[in-house]
């Protein structure tokens, strides 16, 4: 039977797809997957607070600017994760608004970090060694949340791999920056900018490249079936 208004290929295509259809496990809704990721993210922050070098964490947590910095970074990470999970489900929508909010909060966090009153400049060698250590720690604390989120979005069907990878990277490494803010004892603004904020941009860009390469593989496979 030919369906009116369809091309000649329709019947062959439908027969083939029908023959190939199998039961598939459904994805959990993005809100549930986001909640799971946030539990993991909170765990990462707890590890950073417990294992970090900051001896005065208790005092710092009573300082509104410090507390606000960590809270804004964590919220930005959560919004970026929500954007990534929504972007991975075709037609779900709302990812751009959440990504824009995450970006705005990321900028706010940067402004708050630059606004730290610490006036002592670090000696160049210390600036460099602590800088490299913190940049790597942003990656280290972000790695597990990134892998979890990247796998979660990869299990769905992201249409724009680069954007989805960027959102996932932003989420994970903003969280990494929040964790490093809890663990790192240095409050000097230049250090915070160069070693806590800049790595977020670097790792997020790499995540976007990985997303463009890996997250759209489900479609390439589709076109070669």
């Amino acid at each position, binding site marked *: 039977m030919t*369906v*009116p*208004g*369809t*091309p*000649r*290929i*329709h*019947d*062959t*295509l*439908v027969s*083939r*797809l*029908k*023959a*190939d*259809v*199998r*039961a*598939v*496990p*459904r*994805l959990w*809704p993005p809100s549930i997957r986001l909640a799971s990721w946030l539990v993991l993210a909170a765990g990462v922050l707890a590890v950073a607070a417990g294992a970090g070098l900051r001896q005065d964490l208790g005092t710092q947590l009573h300082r509104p600017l410090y507390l606000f910095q960590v809270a804004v970074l964590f919220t930005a990470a959560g919004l970026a994760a929500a954007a990534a999970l929504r972007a*991975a*489900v*075709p*037609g*779900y*929508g709302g990812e751009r608004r959440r990504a824009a909010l995450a970006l705005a909060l990321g900028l706010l966090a940067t402004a708050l970090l630059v606004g730290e009153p610490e006036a002592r400049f670090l000696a160049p060698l210390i600036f460099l060694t602590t800088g490299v250590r913190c940049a790597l720690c942003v990656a280290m604390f972000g790695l597990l949340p990134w892998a979890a989120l990247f796998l979660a979005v990869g299990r*769905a*069907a992201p*249409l*724009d791999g680069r954007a989805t990878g960027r959102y996932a990277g932003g989420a994970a490494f903003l969280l990494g920056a929040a964790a490093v803010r809890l663990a790192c004892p240095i409050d000097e603004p230049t250090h915070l900018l160069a070693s806590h904020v800049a790595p977020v941009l670097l790792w997020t860009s790499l995540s976007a490249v990985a997303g463009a390469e890996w997250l759209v593989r*489900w*479609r*390439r*496979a*589709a*076109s*070669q*079936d």
Partner: protein
Amino acid sequence: MRAGDFDDASRRRARLMAGAQRGEAEAYGELLNEIGPMVMSFLRGRVREAEEVEDLYQEIFMAIHRARHSYDAARPVEPWLFAIARHIVADHAERRRARRAREVVVAVPPERAVESDAHLKPELEQALRRMSGEQRQAIALLRVEGLPVEAAARRAGTSPGALRVRAHRAYKVLRQLL
């Protein structure tokens, strides 16, 4: 369109899609027959060339098939479906723009095209190796021997529709690798 915006037809399609996720072939076939004219009308409004419309139609159906696990049964099918279709059409337009930017228009074709194409030989061989025997045969019958689809299908011992599907997939492999 959100979960609460279902009309009867939309609710029916959502049920059929949920059936497809459970592996019910009849529900899936019914759904594809129902969305076929919708996809076609979407494509006709955006793509001029008939051959491209057919290619994109196949591509959209294949993508729907691969992405069916990502559909949320609590929501209507249409936003999910048209997000896929829109992206595939935009992607196709982007690829076409990139291809056109690489093409050079010449007034007189070169006498010996073979020399300038020599660098493509390894890629072409690689692409041919990546195809199945059936896909290679489809390319040979349609492009090398230049047979019409019906005659080529008879030679290949298959239906014209099936031969077109094989050729379409072979072109995809060529496009990606060359």
